[in-house]
């Protein structure tokens, strides 16, 4: 088994004449939770597209060893399937009895047993994102890519879902890359935070947060990290 399942070596990406990445290098360890923050349009989602194989780099190599699932901002559940059927998509390939058992466990984990037969349009935004997470975490996968998964939710639901994600990852450990605009979210969830610069994006700062999850939003270390990110983005003064 590879202990650096996600790797970019010297990767460059261009969209026409726009340089998104110029020789970017990045390694992510097995089981690590990495958050990527940065100004809008700096190429955060492009990074995920590289890992998911949706996009090929113009030069350099991208290694992605393992089964990848992506959670999108919103509305990527299949609306013609119930919550249970959507989650069961993540369990394809398992025998029927195994699938039923795991499905029950997943529904249990997200607390939506009673909504198993509901269709996505009958669920609230928070419930839908829970189902998305469950679908992506169900079955044998290694890598979870999160593309601003909570950005369409209201603040309180977002806080709640951060806790739930931390709890789910405890049960079902994965290598996670989270792309987000939400700096608090990054500080509260990630082991390592990459702050990207404007295009062509480079990693202008790496921050480690060595604190077990789930973390309190107001934990001094989390607050300190939020401050460090904001300072790096030029939005707060860098007080030492």
């Amino acid at each position, binding site marked *: 088994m590879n202990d650096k399942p996600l790797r970019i070596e010297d990767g460059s990406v261009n969209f026409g004449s726009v340089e998104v990445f110029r020789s970017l290098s990045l390694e992510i360890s097995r089981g690590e939770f990495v958050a990527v923050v940065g100004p809008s349009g700096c190429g955060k989602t492009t990074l995920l597209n590289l890992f*998911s194989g*949706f996009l090929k780099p113009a030069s350099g190599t991208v290694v992605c060893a393992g089964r*990848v*699932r*992506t959670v*999108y901002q919103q*509305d*990527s559940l*299949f*609306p*013609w*399937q119930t919550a249970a059927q959507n989650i069961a*998509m*993540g369990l*394809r390939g398992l025998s029927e009895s195994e699938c039923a058992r795991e499905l029950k466990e997943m529904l249990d984990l997200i607390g939506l047993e009673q909504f198993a037969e509901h*269709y*996505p*349009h009958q669920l609230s935004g928070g419930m839908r994102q829970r189902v998305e997470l469950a679908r*992506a975490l169900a079955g044998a996968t290694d890598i979870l890519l999160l593309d601003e998964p909570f950005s369409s939710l209201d603040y309180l639901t977002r806080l709640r879902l951060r806790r739930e994600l931390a709890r789910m990852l405890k049960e079902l450990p994965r290598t996670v890359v989270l792309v987000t605009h939400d700096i608090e979210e990054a500080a509260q969830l990630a082991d390592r935070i990459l702050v990207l610069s404007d295009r062509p994006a480079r990693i202008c700062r790496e921050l480690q947060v060595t604190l077990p999850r789930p973390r309190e939003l107001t934990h001094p270390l989390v607050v300190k990290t939020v401050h460090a990110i904001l300072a790096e983005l030029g939005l707060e003064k860098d007080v030492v």
Partner: protein
Amino acid sequence: MSVARGFGEEVRTGRLLADLVASLFRVTTGFMLAVVLGIPVGLWLGHHVRSRFALLPAINFFRSLSPLAWIPFAILWFGIGDLPAIFLIFMACFFPLVLATVAAVANIPSVYFRVARDYRFSGVELLTKVTLPAIAPQVITSLRVTAGLAWLVVVAAEMIAGRDGLGFAIWDARNGLRMDLLIVGMIVIGFIGMVIDRVLTRLTKISSIRWGYER
């Protein structure tokens, strides 16, 4: 009063039923042919951008032709009876169905295909588990529209290229100056149109399709 009497007369002689069956048979056959051929063509064009650009103008051309303009050809090629009516109904329904399916396919959010890739759907499964359910609501709406169209066309077709059917009955009544029978024919046609739409509306109540109408 005279309409009611005319209705009774038509039912007693069995002519109304015979006409109704003849018209329904033509509509069903022509419409089904259009569905069976139109939806696959629409799917194919929806997925292939190049062929879409190449063929869409032609489809729009034929769609703009009133099916009634084909009546002389229909008679020339198929004579009198079931075939010309079926041909005209097909011509009326096929092109709008193709266009509606193309539009529905083009409207599928690309994120569904990315999800399908993540979860290893491919080939036939991609079609039956992703594309078809994703376009179902829109296609059903266009089925309702084109079924109505088919019912309009059959009447016109039978007036000119028929020896029986509800359209011919109306034409016959007109020639015989039987306004009562003419109105009987119109009422039956309108009523059947309602029933057809009711049946197709049923489809929108299926639980895996309802999402398209409730969002």
